[in-house]
């Protein structure tokens, strides 16, 4: 059984500009009163600390939006406040997502001093034409120096790339990926571009202005990526995440292993066991409404619902099969009181095993490389016949 960890997610919802592909909860504002925002984030930490305090915190993750627009003092205050409610694991991982522009790079050292020990940079592309197309505010040269600077200040880190961009050839991507690997440390996230609803790209795609690769091209790009990364010593440990052994993002592993995490800030989600029942929590999404609610009530929780055992089982499989390690029987038992064989339909599982999409071992269930590449279909198949309603705590 892998340690699932316990994490804290902090959402900073602001960006300097909205990227055309992004459907995250991010907003552009002329000015913000950062002191108010700092007080509000701290208030929510106090709220959840009161509900589920005393545990050992294995990770903190500042996500967004663009958390590198936060003043280092705000980051420091949040980390300090978390420490009042939860014991910090000696190896605590504290990640901050940052944009690789020169403006933001100026704050890197400050974040390090504030307690951040892992930086995740939104590089996205290593050529100016594509960076522009993706609506990024930095150029390739800035990104390259930001990565170098981050590696000087932080022992751990990662950066993101987006591939299968309109007009990108397989050869273009392969050489760009090799260049990225040469720059990378222990971790790299590579995402295939997908068109998300309610984005600028969605409109352009609908109007036929974006030529997206067809399924076979997308599959070839995915397979090439897997091969190149693996031979470079950065194998996938999750669908889109690659690391040298030990370099995995512990915070994200908590999500995929279906551990507990607290979510604070606008639109943040959590999975948190309170009084023995695992709950799905969600904070108010709109930034100003969130701020007002926190100032009035001390928190902006919109929902905090106990999760049905059947839904817990589904969520655990859905997240866990994204990992190369898969889902262990031990975790399944801990979460639902039942072993994996009791949770899924035997005939469907057998078909998937026979097709080479999943593997069942004495320890657990995992998706193969072929299965991970088609995981949405595999999950639909596996969970359709699942007798999950029988699962009990």
């Amino acid at each position: 059984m892998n340690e699932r960890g316990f994490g804290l997610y902090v959402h900073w919802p602001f960006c300097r500009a909205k990227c055309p592909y992004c459907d995250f909860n991010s907003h552009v504002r002329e000015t913000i009163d950062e002191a108010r925002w700092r007080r509000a984030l701290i208030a929510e930490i106090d709220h959840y600390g009161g509900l589920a305090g005393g545990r050992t915190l294995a990770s903190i993750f500042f996500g967004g939006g663009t958390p590198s627009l936060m003043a280092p003092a705000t980051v420091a205050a949040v980390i300090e406040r978390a420490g009042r409610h939860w014991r910090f694991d000696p190896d605590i991982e504290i990640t901050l997502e940052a944009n690789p522009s020169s403006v933001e790079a100026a704050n890197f050292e400050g974040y390090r001093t504030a307690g951040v020990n892992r930086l995740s940079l939104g590089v996205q592309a290593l050529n100016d034409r594509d960076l522009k197309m993706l609506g990024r505010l930095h150029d390739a040269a800035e990104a390259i120096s930001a990565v170098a600077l981050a590696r000087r200040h932080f022992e751990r880190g990662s950066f993101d790339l987006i591939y299968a961009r309109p007009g990108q050839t397989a050869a273009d991507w392969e050489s760009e990926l090799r260049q990225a690997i040469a720059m990378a440390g222990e971790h790299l996230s590579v995402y295939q571009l997908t068109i998300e609803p309610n984005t600028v790209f969605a409109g352009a795609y609908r109007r036929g202005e974006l030529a997206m690769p067809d399924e076979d091209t997308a599959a070839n790009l995915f397979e090439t990526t897997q091969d190149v990364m693996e031979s470079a010593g950065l194998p996938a440990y999750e669908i889109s995440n690659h690391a040298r052994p030990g370099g995995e993002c512990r915070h994200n592993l908590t999500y995929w292993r279906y551990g507990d995490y607290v979510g604070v800030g606008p639109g943040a989600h959590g999975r948190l066991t309170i009084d023995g029942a695992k709950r799905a929590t969600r904070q108010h999404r709109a930034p100003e409404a969130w701020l007002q609610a926190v100032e009035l009530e001390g928190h902006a929780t919109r929902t905090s619902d106990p999760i049905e055992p059947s839904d817990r089982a589904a969520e655990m499989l859905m997240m866990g099969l994204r990992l190369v390690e898969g889902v262990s029987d031990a975790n399944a038992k801990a979460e639902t009181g039942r072993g994996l064989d009791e949770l899924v339909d035997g005939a469907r599982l057998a078909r998937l095993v026979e097709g080479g999409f999943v593997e069942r071992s004495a320890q657990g269930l995992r998706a193969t490389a072929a299965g991970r590449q088609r995981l949405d279909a595999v999950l639909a198949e596996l969970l359709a016949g699942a007798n999950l309603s029988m699962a009990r705590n």
Partner: protein
Amino acid sequence: MTDLSHIRNFAIIAHIDHGKSTLADRLIQLCGGLSAREMRDQVLDTMEIERERGITIKAQTVRLAYRAKNGRSYELNLMDTPGHVDFSYEVSRSLAACEGSLLVVDATQGVEAQTLANVYQAIDNNHEIIVVLNKIDLPAAEPERVKQQIQDVIGLDASGAVAISAKTGLHVDQVLEALVERLPAPKGDGNAPLKALLVDSWYDAYLGVVILLRVKDGHVKAGTKIRLMSTGAAHEVDRVGFFTPKPETAAELGPGQVGFLTAGIKEVADCKIGDTITEDRRPMAEALPGFKPSVPVVFCGLFPVDAAEYGQLRESLAKLRLNDASFQFEPETSAALGFGFRCGFLGLLHLEIVQERLRREFNLELITTAPSVVYRVHLTNGDILELHNPADLPDPVRIDHIEEPWIKATILVPSDYLGPILKLCEDRRGVQLDRTYAGSRAMLTYRLPLNEVVFDFHDRLKSVSRGYASFDYQLDSYQEGQLVKLTILVNAEAVDALSCIVHGHVAESRGRALCVRLKELIPRQLFKIAVQAAIGGRVIARETISAMRKDVTAKCYGGDVSRKRKLLDKQKEGKKRMRQYGNVEIPQSAFIAALKIGDD
């Protein structure tokens, strides 16, 4: 009791949109049948669907009180009849209740095929026919050309035609005068035993079954014990009356009169159109001529999209049948589509109407399988099987030969489109019987196999003629055909809902088209899928849907769990509507879409 010489009974014959209902509205208004407040467009079309599509499904009558220019008062009975080929028998019975007809022709359009069949029926019923040219207020009206066409195409003297605009009311009074002057009065003997024609019947929630009738001889009133000759069943009349179009109770109905009666009858199915109504105490020796029970000619399967709605579908079909005895249904089970019903209809329009009413009035989402005709399968042991469902076709070794129904079709088309129409008819195995020209239009008479007509013929006809061709048909005879059963297999398993009986010549192309279509419709899945078309055991076409290569959400973190799980829940719901073929599941929607293969 109105003197026979003061009664005129007439029907209105017209093509869709040529103004039949509008003219009826004007006649009712002129005779004061309804106040302005009660008047609305197409008052006689009571069903929503009739009003919307401009077609009449049920016969309606209106008694008009008209004071003619000669100073005498007349009782005019207007019979609004169904105007479509599917209901030609119903039309013939309505016509049999009248002595004359108004032939309404759109002066901007001219004669259409549907009009022809009904005019000929009226002529067969010895009707005096008054030609009415409608829409003469429109700039495009060409009354002289249309008159000539009526003479050339129908062979009817149109010199006395009344030119009107039903819309503006222009010269509508002349129509009333013509009815009085030119139509013969009905004949009948008031002292003879009751003899009446059952014109139509429908179910009323309060009154039970209402019978529309035309009295030939004798009288009928409340208390009369009537007998329906086809079944011998006797009923005591509760009430007689007529429509203005509002129902009005009358003391009695006598010879020459048209009206309604109720007699505590429970089922419309017991009141067959064309039946003879007589007095139980003094029955007629012989029934009126022309009665025949209605026989469905087109069959299809109706399945609820949501299997949970099966019970509701059964109830709805039963309710519809209360009012429409010509439509039949029996339970059917399909491996691909689940539980449903095999339904029989008088024709394609009838099928569409029933389907649409189920959808609208009963709020049911339905899957309709490809319409099929009734085949006569001659077995080697000498038995003859009437086949309503291609899935029931016996093993080919037991079949000696198969007969299929042929129709006689009349097509009217502007000469410019003649070429493609001829080609369409030839492609559909048509045999030309006649080709004549009237002005710029051609009239074609073809013999065609009905199974080629139920398969998208009408849509094709409209599309190759840009909507200008009009088409009508009547059943002709059964004829032996080189027919085969085309089976569609998915991963070597037959999809019953897609099997059909086709002529040997088209089987291959039809099979190939279905395979290609299914390949487009069935989404890639984890496993590859073989789609095949076969005749008997011989595979004639094959398509392979290759296995899916990539299908995975790129980003899924702590904030995405709830949304992603709900998506999976939705997919799980969707899987309930899938059917397992080997190791793949095919969405029902793919079969539904494939069934619409003729639509484009």
